[in-house]
């Protein structure tokens, strides 16, 4: 058992989630476009989903969603469920993923954000009989997706490098054990 790289991975991912959460709640609120902000936590969940597989995607999605619920959720557990499922679904694309190609990551992030938008709409708005889908798509879901996509460009390289570094450490300690 190499426990050290695992702890390193957990700590660094936790720090990354914390930084993204802080950026989203305290920094990007000053840079809202068309009164929406980017959704960094969804981007993060999606990245780890297709980079590391279903299991890690689900766990990281769950943590991101739970963080949301802890601070701002009106239904504790709802965001955790949505984020977790998105992380899990992204895991199915791991086989298609190659590091250098940025098209797939950006495509998956946008799809994830749209799915997230629709899930929130269906469970928390449609359930209260707010039926004007067109409006919500136009003024929340799409602007949020575009903004998230733009920010994802930058975030992707950070996450990708971090993941590479972590995987290198893991391989090295694998070799040491053998």
């Amino acid at each position, binding site marked *: 058992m190499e426990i050290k790289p695992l702890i390193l991975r957990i700590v660094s991912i936790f720090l990354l989630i914390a930084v993204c959460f802080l950026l989203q*709640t305290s920094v990007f609120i000053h840079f809202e476009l068309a009164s929406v902000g980017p959704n960094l936590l969804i981007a993060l969940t999606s990245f780890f989903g297709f980079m590391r597989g279903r299991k890690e995607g689900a766990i990281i999605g769950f943590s991101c969603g739970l963080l*949301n619920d802890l601070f701002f959720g009106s*239904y504790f*557990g709802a965001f955790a*469920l949505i984020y977790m499922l998105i992380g899990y679904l992204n895991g199915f694309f791991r086989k298609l993923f190659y590091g250098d190609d940025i098209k797939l990551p950006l495509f998956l992030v946008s799809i994830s954000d749209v799915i997230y938008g629709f899930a929130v709409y269906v469970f928390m708005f449609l359930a209260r009989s707010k039926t004007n889908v067109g409006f919500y798509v136009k003024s929340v879901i799409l602007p949020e997706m575009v903004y998230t996509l733009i920010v994802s460009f930058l975030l992707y390289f950070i996450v990708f490098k971090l993941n590479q570094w972590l995987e290198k450490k893991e391989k090295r300690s694998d070799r040491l054990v053998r």
Partner: protein
Amino acid sequence: MRRRNSGIPSRFILAFLSILCIVFLFVNYSTGFSGGPLQTVANYIFIPMQKGISYIGSSVSVSSEDAKTKEELISENQALQTQVDELTSQLTNMQLQQSELTNLQELYALDQQYADYKTTGAHVIAKGTSNWFDTFTIDKGSDDGIKVDMNVIAGSGLVGIVTEVGPGYSVIKSIINDSSAVSGMILDTSDNCIVSGDLESMTSSNTILLSNLEDTENQVSSGTSVVTSNISNKYLPGILIGYVTSIEADSNGLTKSGTITPVVDFKHLQDVLVILETKETGE
């Protein structure tokens, strides 16, 4: 990697986490539990950082104030001076009227109903992560005497209500949040109505919705003030919510509904006041 995948299959993780979420939802629904000890942990990790970031943000905005030119400052000073004169004269008038009012109230032996509420000021340090709901965090909590269900105002208008409290922070659900509803009252006629937040009308026209208003004498028109009603079970009476922007009769012919423009500028909310008093409903 391959070795780790041979551990617990991802399907089990998915099932386990889904069940956990659903249990959370049920517990939350039945007991109102929302994190408990986890919240305390979050409080000590994130709140200090959010405070720091918002402090840096505010000091940056102050330094842009410093960059004003001398001419701008002089003209601003003049404008403010005339405003001071104007307001002083208004104030004297008001003081006269106030003393008259106190005399009359004493005559009628009226208790002063809308007593000055005791408040505490706080900074907004973070906003909710989703673009769907309007909630935010302030930098004061139970250590400063804030409790759940306390009303929050800014300037003279209602902002929202405290929904969660930690030692050093509290979360506020604003009245423009899509799921909030406030029992309101038309100031002039004391007719009751329901004021509910709505993302759609907020985004398209900066208004919130007004409904269930019985206005048989057609006295409500655009510009009428709407305050919190005295029959609300969470909001203190007499706090200004906003002004009616449009009003029309419902199809049932008995009630009216329309839109209200809130007095508070929710886009640029930085400091709020929390009223340190919750409504006593005798329940």
